[in-house]
């Protein structure tokens, strides 16, 4: 079924639970839950520091440099500040939903990490529907965001939340379709098997799929240029305008946890996961995650934002047809050329990518914008 998966059997043995694991099944869960929580929170803090310093450099300024050496304690200072802030609920807001929203938004993002392999076999649960689980769970976050927008009883919040729902629901489709290309190559939905199949990183075998996934993912996690739901210059802070204190911090965590999760998924699906020469697996994993993250905030500090109708048009008129084409091309390759060298397929795919992107960008028009009133 899968064409590029030698060595699969060796690794999938690693993926199973080690028989000599002390304490057995439940201890494994406990240990990994602790590891994931620590990893996520620690990486988010690291990312926040790194992003603030990095963006400072991009913007010809220094960035935070007062707290600790090189400002390394800045995330700690931020966290303390945010904890001490007063928690304000709008007078006519829905108190319960307002309280629940950050939790509903945050938990699904944490759940994603349950199936992310940090190393060969180092993961909480090797679900055989791993990537499907990721897509399913991650789309719950939007419910939390919409709850926040609704409960705040604020028009800016509501506008932001409506934008988010429209955007995330639309981009789910190209996102899924680009994942299907990877799944076709692997023949499995399991994250471990997807990594194991990547003797060549799938970014080479699925360049178009990678591009589509990356752009759709940027829209899913609301990063520039699709950061419409918290578009500062338009709707103040979007859905979290009315949030303060720890509840705001939860949304802040969601934002970064989503970036971390999407970096981890891109790493797993397209960049060969933990695999790499010389260095230990988790180091490779971290390096790749970090690289993707760097790329995301590089984009953030460089380009302007799209408008809501342009964002929607881009999803339905550009990404969706491209994703379908990518699927067809991948399918044909797998059925018709099963024995051919992967390098030939890489050349074909890069050619397809170049042609499609050039042609599509010629024909794709973002359409008007003005409505007669």
């Amino acid at each position, binding site marked *: 079924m899968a064409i590029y998966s030698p060595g699969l059997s060796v690794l999938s043995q690693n993926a199973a639970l080690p028989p000599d694991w002390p304490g057995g099944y439940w201890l494994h869960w406990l240990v990994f839950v602790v590891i994931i929580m620590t990893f996520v929170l620690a990486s988010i803090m690291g990312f926040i520091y790194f992003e603030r310093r990095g963006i400072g450099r991009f913007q010809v300024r220094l960035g935070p440099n007062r707290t600790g050496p090189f400002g390394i304690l800045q995330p700690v200072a931020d966290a303390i500040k945010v904890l001490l802030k007063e928690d304000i609920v709008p007078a006519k807001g829905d108190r319960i939903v307002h309280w629940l929203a950050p939790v509903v938004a945050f938990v699904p993002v944490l759940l994603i990490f349950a199936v992310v392999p940090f190393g060969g076999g180092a993961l909480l649960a090797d679900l055989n529907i791993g990537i499907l689980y990721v897509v399913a769970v991650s789309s719950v976050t939007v419910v939390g965001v919409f709850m926040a927008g609704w409960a705040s009883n604020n028009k800016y919040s509501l*506008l932001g939340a409506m934008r988010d729902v429209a955007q995330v629901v639309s981009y789910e489709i190209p996102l899924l379709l680009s994942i299907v290309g990877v799944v076709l190559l692997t023949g499995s939905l399991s994250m471990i098997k997807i990594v194991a199949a990547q003797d060549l990183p799938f970014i080479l075998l699925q360049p178009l799929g990678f591009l589509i996934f990356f752009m759709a993912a940027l829209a899913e996690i609301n990063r520039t240029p699709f950061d419409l739901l918290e578009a500062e210059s*338009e709707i103040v802070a979007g859905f979290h305008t009315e949030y303060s204190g720890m509840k705001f911090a939860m949304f802040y965590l969601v934002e970064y946890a989503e970036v971390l999760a999407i970096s981890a998924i891109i790493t797993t699906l397209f960049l060969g996961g933990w695999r790499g020469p010389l260095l230990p697996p988790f180091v490779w994993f971290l390096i790749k995650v970090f690289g993707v993250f760097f790329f995301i905030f590089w984009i953030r500090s460089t380009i302007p934002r799209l408008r809501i109708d342009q964002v929607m048009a881009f999803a339905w008129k550009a990404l969706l047809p491209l994703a379908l084409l990518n699927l067809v091309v991948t399918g044909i390759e797998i059925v018709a050329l099963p024995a051919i060298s992967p390098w030939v397929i890489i050349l074909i795919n890069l050619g397809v990518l170049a042609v499609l992107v050039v042609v599509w960008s010629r024909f794709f028009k973002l359409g008007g914008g003005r409505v007669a009133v």
Partner: protein
Amino acid sequence: MAVKTELKLKTEPFVLNIGPVHPSTHGVFRMRATLDGEVLIDLEPVFGYLHRGIEKLAEGRTYTQVIPLTDRLDYLASMSNNLAYVMAVEKLAGITVPERAEYLRVIMAELQRIASHLIAVGAFLNDCGAFMTPILYMIREREKILDLLEMVSGQRLTYNYMRVGGVSQDIPGEFLPALRKFVQRMPSYIDEYDQLLAENEILLARSKGVGILPKDMAINASASGPVLRASGVKWDIRKADPYSVYDRFQFDIPTGSVGDCYDRYRVRVQEMRQSVRIIKQVMEGLPEGEVKAEVAHFLRLPVGETYAHIESPRGELGFYLVSDNSIAPYRLHIRAPSLINLTALRDMTLGWKVADVIIIFGSIDINMGEVDR
């Protein structure tokens, strides 16, 4: 149409107060926007939050004491305000200004134009969602201009530099070398901004064809400055009614063709290049001599009225002065270009989406200090 009656889906417009405290209203401006979803169907500008009664205050001060008040009008272009006011007084009193003072005035006014346009363009790009990066690059260059203006006046924002009959003091020795260095470097900085954003696909999609102000409507609204020139009207007071020594220098008037946000942005960038060109010529021809004519301390102007106007960074800035031969103006009226350019806002924004309204508003480049006075 049976479907429509079955659905019973009813939407109604809602009113959103954009401002007076909002990140993108450039001060305390309020737009009472009626929205149908994202689309703007009605807009009512509300201002007056920054009214300080400057025109009335001027009636109780001597002619020299009014100069600091004019600093507080358009605080991003204090030099231009100074210049327009002292020109009005000189015109009514019949004072001739020494050559060197005229040349210095032109240098300061053009430096001020660059500084003001840097903020205008940066803020416009910020409104487009280019997360702070362009504006911080532009603030870097604006700092250099502020340093130069600080050298001559001792102030960084409210210069109070021009005097009736000349300027308050001659330039210090280190000014000209510093200015020469700045003038040499500025064009390459402008190239840098253009490289980053001028042909950026997203910026084009956001600003091309958005917020078109047709030629006839621009003239009817009595718009001036870059807003008018972007609509294709070649009207610049420096050429149309030359004041000071502008008739001695070579420069072009950049105009747009369509009158959309992109044209307004481009016109400003081109004007910065032209200002650099003017400053170069002024430096070459800078004569020696007095910088201030002998003017009585308590100046009494002859009974009468006058109107003096200049091309400020935002358009035609005019001072209408009535004198009753006392030591203070009988009446001082200011034709603020920001306020008058703002009158076209409703026609430009109707039917566009919230995100467009923000950038259309940003592209007019108003300054609330001048609108409210």
